[in-house]
């Protein structure tokens, strides 16, 4: 429920452009037409290309060359092929015939940090945007919104795939070093992406040292994947010869080439190292025979040879900079401790830039990462070997180098790298300082997975000692779970504060300790709200507000900002906790039914949020106020309040903020009630679009369920079920608030009843654990309304059962509670249900009385759907009401009856048992049907049944036809009716 939307500015996840750089092609390369052709064919025949081979097999180089060929001339012959093609090489001829359409190429070099799903997908989208700058903007903003951690990535990817599909030229996404990904979540997302790609439109290339940990055999067998493996990538003897003589110009004899090739077995890195060792050597044959005869490991031998041939300066540079993942001159200067600033400007440029350029020219495994020669990296394998040698020769220097790198990265604001190097230097206190200074900002930016990873890499004892780290960890656990681990961390924070209070020189000032206590209270307020401990919510949220700084104390805040800035960041983060507490506080009276107090509290929450510059949260506060007004039966007032929220939700650039999604959705609900179904649809579609960008799961669930009800009102059960599935998926995949689950149950129940699936409704009611005798909850009041609805439906079906009496008893209590609380909308809904139940009992007089009371409450605000949605019984009663000699609501009743007329009647089902099916289901279809009743996706079903996704889809289509339904939901309901399940 909480819209912890962040302020707009400065929230973007920092992205390194160098990771998106398509590797440059070295001027001299061995042309590999046979492999280029395989890659081209892969583009046309499958959605996935997998390049899997150990280090040093030329994977990245090949991909770089391929892309540059394709970009130079799509569909034309690759120039490198024509210049190098020999008469005997038939592949170039084949290649020329083979016309490849134009593709847009995007590249992402992965590193271990990309196991954070938020970061991974942000980078993927950034890569795609290098080709099409307009794709993925909604998905990217959803990822960067605060609550995106709760949104399933499938939802974001579906939108992205659809956007890509509209583009004229298909896209290729290359993910290099994919073996570094070990996050199950990222793997799931990638599999989903590949399985969901349209046949044309996008192609994924995964390149790495190991196969991805998902089943490949089936894809391979069905030709859904093109593969290049070590055996393909090894240099053929001809390629080795071309490399040693044409590219490196060594001029070796055929015999020497054969010997080198035999020793390296076409392993490219080995040949390259050998060539480097031989350069400048007077007796090449002697080298070759020594190398061939050596019993040492090739790598070990060759790296030593190569290093020994470098000058002392170059050796030092190579070894000391080997600790870096990426290099730029000023970073290398820092690591080598070259004090450039002390030197006169004229003499400065020497040093690292020169060294880097020298290494690049000497082909010493240096890979440029941009066109400007600013960023480089070593070839991975070479870097690993250099690092090994550094550890062996100068172990004492290693921590020093890491510390220097960490400082440099921190100064650049690249905290992930700074943290990694701090750990590398063994200086955990420094690493902890970095987390402390940046952690809360990362919570705001929703980089929770990265933050969690850092905190886990720090020693537990250290985290416990530092209250801010405990607070950060508690926020992370609140957002990504496990939530039961929040409280222990809060207790750790408090213990650390107590220890500090008795210390002579506490690490935190008194002011900061207050803020920590404020964060602890704010988090506990959230947790208490989840557990519905309402007294505690009020107390804790108020405490948080008291402890955290307000805008009123100008002097105090500037001192506070200064103090806070030094140890933990800037003021907005303090405000972040403050603004969220204000919303929590406003929730409390609402749930107590005290509506006037609630309205005041929301107004205050809006003020505080605006004070903190947190517009999304101010918008949420106003939208929640509107929701309260609607619940109170003040629909027109609610409409006005929602308009205010929309007016507030405009960004500095004049565009609507994603937070506008919430008021749009709430507006849609009002329009739905007024039976303005087309307007409602427009509002809801816009609201859902914005909520997706916002990444707000609860608001999205509201949007989907309301839209499903609109579609149901339009008589389109199939579409309603499809829309509803989105809400259900969100519920399955995210930690949604308990009241959102009530909305889902409400909508599901209505869909079941519309589909005539009474048994599903009955088993829900029995499995829900709810009874008519329960104490009623203000938080989940809808829960018991749902139960009553299920009971009424069962009672209508079997009037002799006790269901109707049970329903009536419950409805009487609910009605009393709702009217007592002033929840007029709910009271009307309950009265209408009551009239339906009474009519079914045969008590027409009482039924009419209940309905008349509902009409009295409803007429001033013009409720429509609350009556019409209940269907035929209400229509019958309204007809009777209209026929009354003194009809008190004559005109209104007339309007309602005409709304019934407009509503298309549900198509009567002809089929009542499975034997009535025109064409019986096959055994396989029944199997598929059983899986459809689970929450498996089509690809998952395919996996389960060991068939292709397309086969599953075909089965599903047949099932739909045979059952005369249009959605999975309907199919399952129908199958249950027919006892097929």
């Amino acid at each position: 429920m909480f819209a912890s939307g962040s302020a707009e500015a400065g929230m973007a996840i920092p992205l390194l452009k160098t990771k998106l750089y398509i590797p440059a092609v070295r001027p001299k390369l061995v042309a590999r037409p046979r492999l280029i052709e395989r890659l081209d064919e892969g583009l046309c025949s499958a959605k996935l290309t997998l390049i899997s081979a150990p280090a040093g097999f030329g994977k990245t180089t090949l991909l770089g060359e391929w892309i540059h060929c394709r970009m130079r001339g799509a569909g034309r012959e690759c120039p490198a092929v024509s210049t190098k093609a020999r008469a005997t090489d038939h592949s170039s001829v084949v290649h020329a015939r083979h016309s490849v359409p134009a593709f847009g190429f995007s590249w992402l070099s992965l590193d271990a940090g990309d196991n954070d799903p938020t970061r991974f997908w942000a980078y993927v989208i950034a890569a795609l945007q290098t080709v099409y700058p307009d794709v993925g903007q909604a998905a990217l903003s959803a990822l960067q919104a605060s609550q995106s951690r709760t949104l399933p990535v499938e939802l974001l990817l579906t939108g992205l795939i659809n956007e890509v599909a509209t583009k004229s030229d298909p896209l290729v996404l290359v993910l290099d070093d994919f073996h570094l990904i070990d996050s199950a979540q990222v793997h799931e997302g990638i599999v989903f992406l590949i399985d969901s790609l349209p046949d044309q439109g996008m192609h994924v290339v995964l390149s790495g040292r190991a196969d991805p940990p998902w089943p490949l055999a089936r894809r391979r067998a069905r030709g859904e994947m093109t593969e290049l493996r070590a055996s393909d990538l090894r240099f053929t003897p001809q390629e080795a010869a071309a490399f040693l003589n044409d590219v490196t110009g060594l001029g070796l004899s055929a015999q020497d080439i054969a010997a080198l090739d035999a020793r390296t077995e076409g392993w490219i890195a080995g040949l390259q190292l050998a060539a480097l060792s031989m350069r400048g050597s007077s007796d090449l044959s002697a080298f070759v025979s020594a190398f061939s005869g050596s019993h040492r490991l090739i790598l070990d031998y060759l790296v030593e040879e190569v290093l020994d041939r470098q000058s002392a300066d170059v050796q030092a540079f190579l070894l000391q900079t080997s600790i870096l993942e990426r290099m730029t001159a000023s970073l290398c200067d820092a690591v080598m401790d070259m004090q450039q600033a002390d030197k006169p400007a004229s003499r400065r440029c020497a040093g690292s830039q020169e060294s880097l350029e020298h290494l690049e020219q000497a082909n010493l495994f240096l890979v440029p990462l941009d066109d400007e020669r600013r960023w480089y990296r070593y070839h991975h394998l070479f870097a690993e070997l250099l690092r090994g040698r550094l550890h062996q020769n100068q172990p004492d220097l290693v921590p020093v180098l890491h510390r220097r790198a960490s400082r440099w990265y921190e100064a650049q604001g690249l905290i992930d790298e700074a943290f990694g190097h701090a750990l590398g230097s063994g200086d955990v206190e420094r690493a902890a300082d970095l987390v402390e200074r940046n952690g809360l900002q990362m919570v705001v930016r929703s980089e929770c997975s990265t933050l969690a990873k850092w905190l886990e890499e720090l020693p537990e004892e250290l985290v416990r000692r530092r209250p801010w780290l405990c607070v950060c960890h508690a926020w992370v656990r609140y957002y990504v779970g496990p939530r039961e681990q929040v409280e222990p961390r809060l207790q750790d924070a408090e213990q650390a504060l107590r220890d500090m209070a008795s210390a002579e020189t506490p690490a935190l000032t008194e002011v900061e300790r207050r803020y920590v206590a404020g964060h602890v209270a704010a988090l506990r307020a959230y947790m208490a709200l989840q557990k519905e401990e309402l007294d505690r919510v009020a107390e804790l949220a108020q405490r948080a507000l008291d402890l955290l700084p307000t805008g009123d104390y100008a002097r105090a805040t500037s001192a506070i900002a200064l103090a806070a800035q030094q140890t933990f960041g800037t003021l907005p983060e303090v405000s972040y906790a403050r603004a969220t507490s204000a919303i929590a506080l406003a929730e409390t009276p609402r749930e107590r039914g005290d509506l006037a107090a609630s309205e005041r509290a929301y107004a205050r929450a809006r003020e505080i949020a605006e004070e903190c510059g947190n517009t999304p949260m101010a918008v949420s506060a106003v939208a929640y106020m509107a929701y309260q007004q609607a619940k109170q039966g003040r629909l027109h007032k609610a409409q006005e309040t929602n308009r205010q929220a929309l007016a507030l939700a405009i960004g500095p650039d004049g565009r609507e903020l994603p937070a506008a999604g919430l008021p749009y959705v709430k507006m849609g609900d009002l329009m739905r009630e007024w039976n303005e179904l087309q307007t409602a649809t427009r509002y809801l579609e816009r609201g859902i679009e914005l909520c997706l960008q916002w990444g707000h799961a609860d608001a999205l669930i509201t949007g989907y369920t309301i839209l499903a009800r609109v579609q149901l009102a339009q008589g389109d059960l199939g579409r309603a079920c499809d829309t509803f599935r989105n809400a259900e998926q969100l519920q399955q995949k995210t930690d949604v608030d308990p009241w959102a689950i009530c909305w889902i149950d409400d909508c599901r129940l209505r869909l079941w009843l519309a589909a005539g699936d009474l048994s599903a409704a009955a088993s829900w009611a029995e499995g829900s654990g709810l009874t008519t005798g329960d104490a009623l909850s203000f938080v989940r009041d809808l829960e018991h309304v749902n139960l009553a609805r299920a009971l009424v439906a069962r009672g209508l079906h079997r009037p002799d059962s006790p269901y109707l009496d049970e329903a009536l008893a419950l409805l009487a209590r609910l009605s009393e509670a709702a009217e007592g609380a002033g929840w007029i909308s709910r009271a009307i809904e309950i009265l209408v249900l009551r009239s339906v139940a009474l009519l079914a009992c045969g008590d027409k007089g009482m039924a009419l009385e209940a309905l008349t009371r509902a009409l009295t409450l409803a007429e001033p605000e013009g409720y429509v759907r609350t009556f019409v949605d209940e269907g035929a019984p209400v229509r019958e009663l309204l007809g009777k009401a209209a026929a009354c000699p003194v009809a008190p609501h004559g005109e209104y009743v007339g309007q309602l009856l005409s709304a019934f007329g407009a509503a298309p009647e549900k198509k009567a089902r002809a089929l009542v048992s499975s034997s009535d099916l025109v064409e019986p289901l096959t055994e396989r279809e029944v199997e598929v049907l059983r899986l459809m009743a689970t929450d498996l996706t089509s690809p998952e079903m395919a996996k389960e049944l060991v068939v292709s996704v397309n086969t599953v889809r075909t089965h599903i289509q047949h099932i739909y036809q045979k059952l005369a339904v249009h959605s999975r939901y309907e199919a399952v309901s129908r199958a249950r009716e027919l006892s097929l399940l």
Partner: protein
Amino acid sequence: LAGGREFDKPAIYEVCVKGAVDAAWASYWFEGFAVVRLPNDESLLMGQVADQSALLGLLARMRDLGLPLLSVRRVGHGEMPEEDVQDGEDNG
């Protein structure tokens, strides 16, 4: 299945790779592992890993260094035994 608790405990593994691994060199890459050169240009690395994750980390490092893997075998539980690794026969 993730296996039982047994695999959370230290165990001794021997890993056979292709190539003559130098003991000094291996002491950095595979800390705490003894290296035995075998005939046929193979090397046997033997040592203790803390748990299954540590073992997989070790194998990933071999992959990253381009060492072709011939066999992996668990040869004992708990700590390294006192007696040293015996010079093995061809283990490929």
